[in-house]
Every structure is written in structure tokens, then in C-alpha cells.
């Protein structure tokens, strides 16, 4: 999967000839540019890279990548990508999906791909709205959200995509944001290196139907006080000069934010994405408030467990190891197995 290629590729090599057709100002543009710029560093030939998407604004993504790609149907990308990945372990398979595509109609395929640990890099562009169908609420929209389909406000609590993924046994879970190219690329890098399913939520602005949904995380005046940048092995602090920090109050199960000055340094939680027990990452996933305060971004969890693909391939290999005949001979043997009789 990562044999070096002769010629070093550049971002331009990953641009397809298709005109990009998102609304001007859409966060998808930034994500596309970040990914096109990032892909060359993987050293995977373009022809071995495949983007599979569902339906939604975000799901147009594959058209713009000069790799192999399939714009499939609503919600089914993880299922289709599973068949591709399991049968073609030599490929690097990426799934691009939206909050509606992945969590509404496609919720089941997503959680099963994560449980199985299929070798997919799943990028969920979360704009907390249905973009393509022009503005209905999505499973990540806030309670009480007023949209075309909920003029009196939505009645249901949203999913927390990362909590859901962790509840579904995800081995890699991360979050990043459209506007921060460097950070986005760093999370993708970690995802690409992970063997198994890597689930990455990307906060994405839909400037037409849900503009400013993540504004607090982007506005220079609030950004630093709202965003928690997770770094493996580092104490979790944020804000100007690390003003705030994350602690794990004794007796409690969740995490809380404190003034760094008010706690002893050893009380500050040191981020470790590799702990086997998902309870830590789960606690992290619950940190943000409704106003997006204390939003961690980065790699929440990255643990090793065998990918579904690798187990399947190992089973195939084991079965084939004993074979000495040609396929035709094997077939003849199989057809003639069991009780047979001969008429002459």
C-alpha cells in the first residue's frame, strides 16, 4: 500500500479535470484543497487510491480527485467500500460522506464498518445540515433547530458522531476542521497510517444553509479559547499561553476544564490516544458544550486491532496454502466430492 512511486506527485496531480461545483465560499473547497495537497505525501500511486462517497454536497468529492472514484448512493458508501477494500487489499480506500449521508440513512453501514475495523479512511464532512436537499436538519443539528422541515424547531437530540463511533468500537477516531489546513492534514496523516477503520469528523461550514455553525472555532477572537488541540503525549492545555487545561476530577468519569493556574501540573490530563479502553476517548468526546466551548480536535483514539481485511486475507491465505492443484483440478475435485456413482 505504500510502495514508493518513481515520480514525486504534487497537489496538481490529484486535481481532476472536472469543474468544482460547490457554492462559492463552501467549506468543502478548503477540505478539497487540503486533501489534494496532502495526498502526494502518502506516496501511494494515484491509481491505487479510491474515493467512494454517498450522496450530498460533500459526496461530490470523488469527482474532483484525479484518482479512482465512485459517487454511489445515499448512505451506502461504507458498504460499497467494504467490498472493495476487503477484496482489494492493495488499494487505499477513502470514504467521503456528510452528516446526513453517514449518520442518517447510512448510520448502520458506518457503525458496522467501524465494528469490523474495515481498512477504510472515513471522512465525515459535518455541516450539521442537509446541504444538497437545501436545508433540512440533520442528525447532528442542535435541538430546537429551525429548518425547512422543522419550522417549530427540531424535537430530537443530535448524535455526537465521535461518541457514536466509540460506542461502535472504532479503533481510530479524530476530529478536525475545514479552515485549518495544517491540522486537517495532520489528522489525515494519522488516519492514513492507521491499519483498520479511521473515522475523522471534519467540521465544515455550509455558508448557504447553516452559515457560521462553527464560527466560534474559527473566529480569531474566540478560536483559541474554544478549541482544544490534542497532541499525543502532551498535557491537554489550550487558550492563550495554555490558560486552560483539562483535568479528570477524582471520582468522576468525565473530563473538565480548569484554569491552568488553579491546578497542579500533574493534575492535567496527558493525552494518550493509544489507551485500549475507549472510555477515555469517550470522555473526551463529551467535553464540548452546546456553545462549542472546549471542543477537542486531533486524534482522540488510535489503537491497534486486526483489520477485518487482514483477517479475511489471512483466512484465504491459510486455505490456499494447502492447495497444490490448478484451479481447474481443484474444481473437478470439488464437483466430484461427496457420494458419487458412475454409469458406464
Amino acid at each position, binding site marked *: 500500500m505504500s510502495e514508493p512511486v518513481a515520480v514525486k506527485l504534487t497537489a496538481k496531480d490529484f486535481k481532476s479535470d472536472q469543474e468544482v461545483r460547490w457554492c462559492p465560499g463552501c467549506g468543502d473547497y478548503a477540505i478539497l484543497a487540503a486533501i489534494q495537497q496532502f495526498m502526494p505525501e502518502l506516496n501511494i500511486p494515484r491509481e491505487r487510491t479510491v474515493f467512494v462517497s454517498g450522496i450530498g454536497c460533500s459526496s461530490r468529492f470523488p469527482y474532483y480527485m484525479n484518482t479512482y472514484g465512485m459517487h454511489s448512493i445515499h448512505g451506502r458508501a461504507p*458498504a460499497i467500500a*467494504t467490498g472493495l477494500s476487503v477484496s482489494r487489499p492493495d488499494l487505499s480506500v477513502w470514504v467521503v460522506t456528510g452528516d446526513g449521508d453517514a449518520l442518517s440513512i447510512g448510520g448502520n453501514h458506518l457503525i458496522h464498518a467501524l465494528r469490523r475495523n474495515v481498512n477504510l479512511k472515513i471522512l465525515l464532512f459535518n455541516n450539521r445540515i442537509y446541504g444538497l436537499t437545501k436545508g433540512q436538519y440533520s442528525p447532528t443539528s442542535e435541538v430546537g433547530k429551525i429548518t425547512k422541515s422543522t419550522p417549530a424547531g427540531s424535537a430530537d437530540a443530535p448524535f455526537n458522531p465521535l461518541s457514536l463511533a466509540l460506542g461502535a468500537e472504532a479503533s481510530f477516531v479524530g476530529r478536525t476542521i475545514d479552515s485549518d489546513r495544517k491540522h486537517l492534514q495532520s489528522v489525515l496523516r494519522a488516519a492514513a497510517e492507521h491499519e483498520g477503520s479511521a473515522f475523522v469528523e471534519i467540521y465544515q461550514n455550509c455558508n448557504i444553509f447553516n452559515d457560521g455553525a462553527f464560527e466560534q472555532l474559527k473566529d480569531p477572537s474566540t478560536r483559541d479559547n474554544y478549541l482544544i488541540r490534542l497532541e499525543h503525549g502532551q498535557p491537554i492545555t489550550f487558550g492563550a499561553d495554555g490558560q486552560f487545561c483539562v483535568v479528570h476530577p477524582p471520582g468522576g468519569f468525565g473530563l473538565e476544564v480548569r484554569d491552568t493556574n488553579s491546578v497542579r501540573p500533574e493534575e492535567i490530563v496527558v493525552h494518550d490516544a493509544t489507551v485500549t479502553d475507549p472510555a477515555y476517548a469517550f470522555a473526551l468526546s463529551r467535553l464540548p458544550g452546546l456553545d462549542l466551548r472546549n471542543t477537542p480536535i486531533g486524534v482522540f483514539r488510535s489503537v491497534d486491532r486486526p483489520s477485518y481485511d487482514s483477517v479475511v486475507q489471512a483466512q484465504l491465505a491459510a486455505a490456499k496454502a494447502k492447495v497444490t492443484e490448478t484451479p481447474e483440478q481443484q474444481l473437478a475435485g470439488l464437483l466430484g466430492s461427496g457420494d458419487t456413482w458412475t454409469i458406464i
Partner: protein
Amino acid sequence: MTKQIRQLDRVVIRFAGDSGDGMQLTGDRFTSETAQLGNDISTLPNFPAEIRAPAGTLPGVSSFQVHFADYDILTPGDAPNVLVAMNPAALKANLADLPRGADIIVNTDEFTKRNLAKVGYQTSPLDDDSLAGYVVHPVALTSMTVGALAAHQVSKKDAERSKNMFALGLLSWMYSRPYESTLRFLERKFAARPELVAANVAAFKAGWNFGETTEDFAVRYEVKPAKMKPGTYRNITGNAALSLGLVAAGVRSGLPVFLGAYPITPASDILHELSKHKRFGVITVQAEDEIAAVGAALGASYGGSLGVTTTSGPGVALKSETISLAVALELPLVIVDVQRAGPSTGMPTKTEQADLNMALYGRHGEAPVAVIAPRSPSDCFFAALEAARIALTYRTPVILLSDNYVANGSEPWLLPDVESLPDLRVEFATKPNGDDGTTFLPYLRDPETLARPWAIPGTAGLEHRIGGLEKADKTGDISYDPANHDFMVRTRAARIETIPVPDIEVEDPDGDARVLVLGWGSTYGPIGAACRGVRQRGLSIAQAHLRHLAPMPANLGEVLRSYDKVVIPEMNLGQLAHVIRARYLVDAISYNQVRGLPFTAAELETTLEEVLKNV
């Protein structure tokens, strides 16, 4: 005591008992012994919907019917000559199917007050005269088995459970079956527990000896081998044959077979079977649901595998949207629908042919696919190969309509020579196909097959994107151009309509028939048997059977129009008849039964004679 030996040309035996009585296994073994003898065979298992319905109840009855003969036969037989009834429920559930004069072997040990009451018998039918018209053989099967195993080191429960082998021994004696394969089978089956091998073998022999000695069985029968084509045979069910056909398609195409499946009766056995063939490179994924199953299969096809998904009606309904995507993507995909009785959950263990409409028309938009159907258990092998051939050559989804009757029924199968199987090799695209020598046009078609190139990921220089939005001809770019859409819709239709399929053959031995019976799928046997019956009465009738439902054979219209009347028997309300009427404007007579059971040859015969009278 010397026994009389009588020659018969055909026999139908039905083993019936409680779900826990091992009737399927007993029937299977009897079938195997019979096959060894060279009779032609056809079998029909019939099991309850419940896993283990309460013991001794009517819904708990499980049966297995085997028909064997010294000539080639077409069905498992309408009415059993012999019923083995392991308990009152088995007797009650099956009696109505027996013709007068049939033999009934009953296990008297189970005819207790309690068991009789369970199925509503006030008095024992063995004691009143309700079985007067039959030849009843009361046998204390359970107690004789337990007695025979007195010296064996097995629990009473295990001893009792061997009673099916006693019954098998008795029947094997009665019909002079060779039993070596059964003894070998028992050794394999109970390899881990030698005491059970011994007990089951002893029970079998006790049954055999009982036949030999008791006076109740004065006659022993022989059915001579049938004249069958030389070669090596095995007995095979439709589901097994279909699985082997898929493995064979993998071997003959050189492609890995990828099965995405979600368990569902009566298709699950194909998943079970294929999951054993990893050494052929066959991958099976038990998906989270039917949509994921077909999605995974399509993903695998995109990657260069032969993507297959197997299911039954409710599963096909769920897969429709993805099949429609496969139509747009123009990738190979085999969808196997082992039909069962619907609508909704219906009667999952019963047969029906009512998914033809869905296969032909059950998708949004104009989304044509190829549709084929096997006619018998062993034909499922060839049908699977044919489905793969069409899918691979024409880059299209193919729906293969099997049904519960062929899937679980069995018949002898003359093993084909592997080299004689069709060559299914395909060529992936490897280089640009545009006029300029550098562009790749994913929707530039082969002028003959109308298939687009199959350029699988990993092929350098052919990177391209496909999807479910309408695509421009040749380039495959997204297109909203009205003329292009019209063109693409018509091209997709033509792609299917122009697939060359063999002409339909008509069987009309007398050559002067004025009535044609047209069928499709699993009705081949009953229709064939009925036609034979009609002809034996000196009447002429022609039979033709469709394997290809979409596209249809080119000569079909002509064939239909050359008869005064066309009768179409179907286990649905006339779905093929509707298509035939629409396509050929032929006033076909639809004859329908939707009972969850195959047609009996006799009732079809009567129907056909009725039609013949009015020509």
C-alpha cells in the same frame, strides 16, 4: 421366511416425523443409497418454519419425499406410495396426500393418548377404521430400536434418537437398497463419538433384519437402474449446485468470487456453502443487511471481482436501489433470488415464482437487467454459470430466479467435464481508448456487446470517476443534457435486449401439437411430467421452457404464434403470461396456483387436457 420380490418401475416414499426425528437426514441417506443403485431420482424436503416447533404438533412435522424410478423422471412425485409416519402428527399432516392403497409404516410407540390428543385425534386412527383404504404396517420403532441397543453404551435418549436409522434400515431392505454408503456416512458423522457410530449402525441393521424376518413385510421390491447417460453422477440440491456454479464461474473467469450476503431462508445455504471454498479465493462477507450485502458485492465488482449477492424476495426488495446503481455503473453483478412465498414475510419455507415482476420491473427509472431462471436442481449449476457469463460479458446486473423447490430439491447430476464449461475470461481495460491515445473514456462501448470498459482501480493512467448521476455517453462525465439522457436510457435498454441468448426449443414429439405449454423456472419438471401424461393418452402437446426471461429468445414470438393456444402455468398470478401477452399480443391462458407447493403433474395434466378439448 422367503420373501417375494416384486419389480417396480417407480416408487415415491415420504418420510415424515417430528422436527427432531431426523427425517431430512433419513431421506437424504435413502436418496444416496438409491442414487448408488443408478435409479433416477427427484426429492422434495418440506420442513416447518419453526426451528423446533413443539414436539408432536402438526406445525412441527418435517418430511422428505423421494421419487425413484428405472426411467428418467421429472418430479418428486405427486402422491407417495409409502408413508413412513414417525408419530400421529406426521400421519395426520400427510394422510391427505396418499392415494388409496398406499403403504403406511407407523411408529406405534408414539401413538400415545397424549400425542394423539395433541393433534386432535379422539381415537387412535390405528384402532378405528379410518385407515381402512391403506396398507398399514404398525411397527414399534422406538422400543425395538431401544431393545436392539440394549447392549450398547448409549443413553436411552441417544438410543431413541437412532430410531430413524431403524426406519431407514427397514426401508432399505424393503427396496433392496445398497447400504455401504450409509455405514460410511455414519462413521464420518459420528467420528468423534464411536459409541454412536456403533449404535446407529446397529439400529440400521436391526431395521433391515426386522424387514427380513417379520411376516408383516411379505414383499420386497426392486427398482432397476434407469438408463442414464454414462458418466459420474452425484445427487445434488439446487442450492448446492448453484454454489458450485459460482465457484466454477470464478475458476473459468479467473476472477475471485466475492459473495456479499445476509442470511435468509431459503438462500442461506449458498452463503454457508461458499464460505467453505476459501481455497478458491472465494470471499464471503456476511453483511449487516441486504443493502450492505449487495453494496459490498458491487464494490468488489468495481475492484475486479465477480460480485455476487444471494437472497430471497424481501432481500431483493431492499437491494433494488443498489441494483439500480449497478445499472447506471454498468458493472457485472449477480443477484440470486431464491424465491419463497410472499408477500412480506409470507411463508418463508414454501416455494413460489412471484418475484418475476420484481426482477423485471422492480426498480425506479428505466433500469433494465438480465433475468434468468434454472429449471431443476442440477440446472442451477449451469444457470449460475450463465448468469456470470452475461454479467461479465455485458457488464450488467443479472438476476437469477431460483426458488425453494429447486433450491432444496435434489436430483442426480451428471458431473460435467471442467474443460467443457464455458470460458468466462474477461479483459480489463489497460490503456487509454480515446482517439487521442491518451484519454480514457469509461463509457465508450464495445460496438458488439455495448459493454463499457472495465477499468479496475490499480490500473495506472485510467483513473476515472463513476456514479449514479446520468453520465454523458463515452466520457462518463455528469450530464443533464436531455438528448444524452434519452440516448443513454435507450442504450441501457438495448444493451439488455440485444444480448444474444439461445433460441427457445420446443419439445413436440408428435410434431402436430396445436397447444403449447410455456413455462419458466422450477415448473419444468411438473409441466414435463404432465405433458408426458397427456401424450400417453394419445394426445399431442408441445412444451417450451424459458431460461432467459430478459432478454427473451429471439424466436419466441414466432414459436408462440405457431400454436393455436398457449398455456402458461405459473406459481403466481400470471406474471410471465402478462409479459408474453404484452410483448407478443398472444392471448396466452394463464394457469395459476399459489399454494406454496410445486404443481402436481396430475393436476396439470387435467388442466392441459381441458385446454386440448377446447382447441
